């Protein structure tokens, strides 16, 4: 029994160290990529500019319909229910704050991040992983092209911008759409909450929300690029790294979201 608990402690310790080392590696990778980016100079290069634009189109614009659909679904299923339950216990202000905090600030970020991880994170790993597999990455480096500058940084920037924009969009649809749905489906009186909901988001909250989503975007694209560039010589490594990138990105996004929630609770 003692031996079993001892090995469990060892496993727990080793796993914790592995996760910590992984986070350090990933952070350094993202920071090096952003440091290598040549900013406006890079944007003047058509291929880099197009990489960012394409990333924003693929990750952001193309995901709009699914985010709209999910936002409406969450609005109808959760916001409306939340209001229906809270109406007996709280004031209008408390109900609005509840919807803004839970649906807008938390679910908006998380569901958008989950969609982006599944949709864009996996696509980045497959795309970049195949480039690595077929030595295209090495071919560029041999021409004096900095991969961090030309390939990784544009994806980080594109995914972060998209995550921020989509989560704002999702939060808007899920909260206002939810209140509207509650008004239409349950009782017209819920529509009175739309005006106070508009002022429920304080500038500080919006700033924290944007910062959190910026970090989510960096994690999603950073994890994807980090794992894609680990692909070696075997085609089987591409799906393996894709799976690792998705699982790790999900884990990190949820941990970061929890840390943000804790920080806000103590602030």
């Amino acid at each position, binding site marked *: 029994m003692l031996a079993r608990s001892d090995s469990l402690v060892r496993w727990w310790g080793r796993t914790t160290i592995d996760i910590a080392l992984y986070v350090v590696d990933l952070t350094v990778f993202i920071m090096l990529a952003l440091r290598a980016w040549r900013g406006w100079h890079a944007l003047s*290069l058509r*291929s880099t500019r197009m990489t960012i634009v394409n990333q924003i189109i693929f990750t952001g614009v193309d995901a709009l319909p699914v985010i709209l659909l999910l936002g409406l679904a969450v609005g109808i299923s959760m916001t409306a229910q939340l209001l229906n339950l809270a109406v007996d216990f709280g004031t209008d202000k408390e109900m609005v704050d509840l919807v803004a905090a839970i649906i807008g600030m938390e679910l908006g970020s998380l569901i958008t991040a989950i969609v982006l991880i599944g949709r864009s994170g996996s696509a980045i790993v497959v795309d970049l992983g195949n480039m690595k597999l*077929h030595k295209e990455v*090495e*071919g560029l480096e*041999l*021409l*004096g092209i900095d991969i961090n500058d030309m390939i990784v940084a544009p994806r980080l920037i594109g995914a972060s911008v998209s995550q921020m924009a989509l989560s704002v969009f999702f939060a808007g649809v899920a909260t206002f759409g939810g209140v509207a749905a509650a008004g239409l489906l349950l009782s017209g009186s819920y529509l009175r909450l739309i005006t106070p909901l508009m002022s429920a988001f304080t500038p500080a909250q919006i700033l924290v929300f944007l910062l959190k989503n910026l970090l989510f975007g960096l994690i999603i694209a950073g994890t994807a690029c980090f794992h894609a560039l680990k692909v070696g010589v075997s085609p089987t490594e591409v799906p393996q790294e894709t799976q690792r990138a998705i699982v790790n990105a999900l884990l990190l996004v949820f941990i970061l979201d929890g840390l943000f929630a804790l920080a806000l609770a103590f602030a």
Partner: protein
Amino acid sequence: MNAPAPIITARGVVAEGMLGTAVAERPLELAVGRGEMVCLIGPKGTGKTQLLRALAGLEPPAAGSVDLLGRRTAALDAEGWLDLRRRAAFITSDAPLLSVVDAVVNVTLPAMYHRIGEPAMVRAEAIALLDKLGWRGDLRLLPAFLDEHQRRLLALARCLILKPVVLFVDEPFRMIDVSGWRHFGAVFEGLVRDDRLAVLMVTHNLPYVRESGARILFCGTRGSRLFADWRTLATDADPEVAAFLAESGFHAATVI
């Protein structure tokens, strides 16, 4: 008048993975100047590619030192390494191109990245370069729709657009037919003769090596030896050289 400094100077070089083997007993001493071609030949497993990569500064040698374009390769930082790659081009045996962009963008991309000129000018230069290299085909096609000969010419062109001083090529004639390699051979000879490029290549194509008139670096199981030309190699008394030539189809009657 002083002779121009060599572009590559290798002193006591042993390639990565060859330390501790018999190859390390005869480390490489080599100096290569502008307008010179050196062909690295030899049996499989004697570290030709590793040696080429060490000479190009892609990997540090296991022993000895390499000075490339006046800079000690082992002392280069990441920025210096990337900067060196513009003037010391290296084409791997796979000659990979960027699969998501078309033929002409593959050639213009490095020039645009390094801001060598305006897009229209670079594009015109790329087309002129491809024409000079004898490239025939649709420039709007993605690499996947091109044949091996076309892809290899594009890989060469995208290096040349950076106007390098030295070109390292690993097995440039792989997977191309006789007319293809003859065309390639003529291209390399033109680059050496007209553009004064230094070219170092690993090849198994001995008919080309014989015709090229290049210096030959024979990589054997006991190390590398430099020969002034094919005739010197073919008449050498080293049994390993003779055995390699015989295995490659060059017998006593045909070797010279």
